[in-house]
């Protein structure tokens, strides 16, 4: 059970990292296109891999490119139309969703055996995917706190004007952040399709709430400028264990939704806003 929990937490962590970078950029920055992105990328990956072990790398690259393209499109909308990121990513998600429906219609390709194996293989009871993601998050922590890019993201989130005056290429950093978010969405789409043995459009649906919840519960400031990478793991495991516990009690889907919603609201209320009211 712990193993399954860890594996599920992994996907929340990866999408959470994507959302964390975006949210850290400051108020109003959030990527609502993640679920649609994951859905489309899962279909793209499965179609390119076409069940053959030789095509795994190509499929991953295709999913990654789809994600990067979506990130670029999101940023393009934000920049060209000067609209809040929420609206840009929302409108983009409409179109991505339709593209996914149209592209993935009737798609019932199983992942290549080696890829499916890779997503569920365990080392001493710990899923390989979880180990990989743990290493990945260490890298994310270094990226965020030790590199110019990461420090710039934090600076922009604290005060984008001040960041601009101190010579940070604000727009380039924002663009890179949306591209990173898109790319991570694409990768998690491919991995999810491998883990659940096939792609589906709804495969990413729960990761809109999950990604935001993991970020918020994990202690990243929703008003930007302050990110917490280890918190993502804590929050993801907490949510997965909560759901596992509810499942063990045998509660219905309705109660499960209700409790998840209330927990998230409870945490955000307890954490409160970063800036004083008024």
């Amino acid at each position, binding site marked *: 059970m712990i193993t399954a929990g860890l594996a599920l937490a992994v996907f929340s962590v990866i999408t959470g990292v994507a959302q964390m970078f975006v949210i850290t950029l400051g108020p109003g920055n959030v990527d609502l296109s993640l679920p649609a992105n994951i859905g489309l990328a899962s279909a793209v990956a499965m179609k390119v891999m076409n069940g053959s072990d030789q095509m795994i790398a190509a499929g991953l690259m295709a999913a990654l490119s789809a994600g990067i393209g979506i990130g670029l499109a999101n940023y393009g909308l934000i920049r060209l139309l000067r609209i809040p990121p929420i609206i840009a990513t929302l409108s983009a998600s*409409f179109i991505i969703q*339709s593209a996914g429906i149209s592209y993935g219609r009737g798609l019932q390709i199983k992942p290549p055996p080696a890829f499916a194996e890779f997503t569920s293989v365990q080392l001493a009871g710990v899923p390989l995917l979880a180990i990989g993601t743990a290493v990945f998050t260490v890298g994310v922590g270094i990226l965020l706190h030790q590199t110019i890019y990461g420090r710039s993201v934090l600076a922009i989130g604290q005060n984008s004007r001040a960041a601009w005056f101190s010579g940070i290429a604000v727009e380039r950093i924002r663009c890179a952040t949306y591209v990173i978010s898109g790319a991570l969405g694409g990768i998690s789409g491919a991995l999810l399709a491998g883990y659940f043995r096939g792609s589906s459009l709804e495969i990413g649906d729960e990761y809109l709430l999950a990604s935001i919840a993991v970020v918020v519960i994990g202690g990243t400031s929703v008003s930007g400028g302050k990110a917490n990478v280890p918190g993502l793991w804590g929050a993801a495991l907490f949510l997965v264990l909560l759901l596992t516990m509810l499942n063990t009690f045998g509660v*219905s889907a309705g109660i499960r*939704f209700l409790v998840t*919603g209330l927990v998230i609201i409870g945490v955000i*209320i307890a954490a*409160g806003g*970063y800036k004083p009211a*008024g």
Partner: protein
Amino acid sequence: MTSAPGRSAMRMPWAVGRTSRRILRGALPGISLALVMLGIAWLNQRAISYFGLNLMLSLGVPVALATIAQMFVITVNDLDLSIGNFVSFVGCVTATWLRDIPLLGVTVLLAGIALYALMGAVIYLRNVPSIVVTLGMLFVWQGLAILLLPKPGGKAPDWLRGLMTLHTPYVPFPIIAAIIIAVVVHIGLMRTSYGAILRGSGGNPNAIARAGWSLLKTKITMYALAGFFGVLSGLALIGLTTSADANIGKGYTLLSIAGVILGGGEFIGGRVSPIGAVIGALTLTLAGSLLNFMRISPDWQVGAEGAILIIVLAARALINRVEVRAS
């Protein structure tokens, strides 16, 4: 309704004066609706008739009500990601309790509005982002709706069914309903003094607070109004569909946001337009029919909504840019 401002739009935007540009921007919703109507008329003339309009626009009524609900939230610079699931929840209550035990049904719906008001208070007092709170509420409403109606079913109360299928003389009922909704909200929000305060609390909260108005009260009022119109939307929807399911209003969150933007609402600064929002909602509803007439696969229905949204925002960005350059 749309012909007069529409004509001024025929000229190039950079050739007209400042006031005309404002009119042009205000006319965008009307122009989009007229374009969609023209498209439908061109593809299928019989659709533009009493019966055809009644059929195509009837689902526009709940969408318009949900859009108005979303507009109230957007006025105070927030975004409600839960409205679609709230409409579903209201639908489930309507098709079960409101029909069988009216008193309980009414109480639960009022409690729903009270929860919306509470949500507004929490968002203001704890200074938390509305998207996270409403995202959480999305799951709460969804959970409640599934608990109430695990399988699609229920039945609309007869009075509601009667109201929504009303056959009004000459003008189809959905059009009359849309006009009533637009005018009532327009008068309330745009023409009364407290309406100005409410909009001001989104435009310049500090000024409103310094003038001695309670921002907490305005936030609560706006969220309660959103809840109220969300309830109306759910009622109207069930009156049309006659039965409910827990996901019946799922698409309304996106539709309502798109409708507000299409109707000329801005995201910041309390700049919204109730009439525009209703027109925007009707445009999106008709756009669905237009796509059907164009034989475009339903797969692209949502995508087309997104594309319309982006085109309108692009048009607005263009007008704004010309305006900035001119001044």
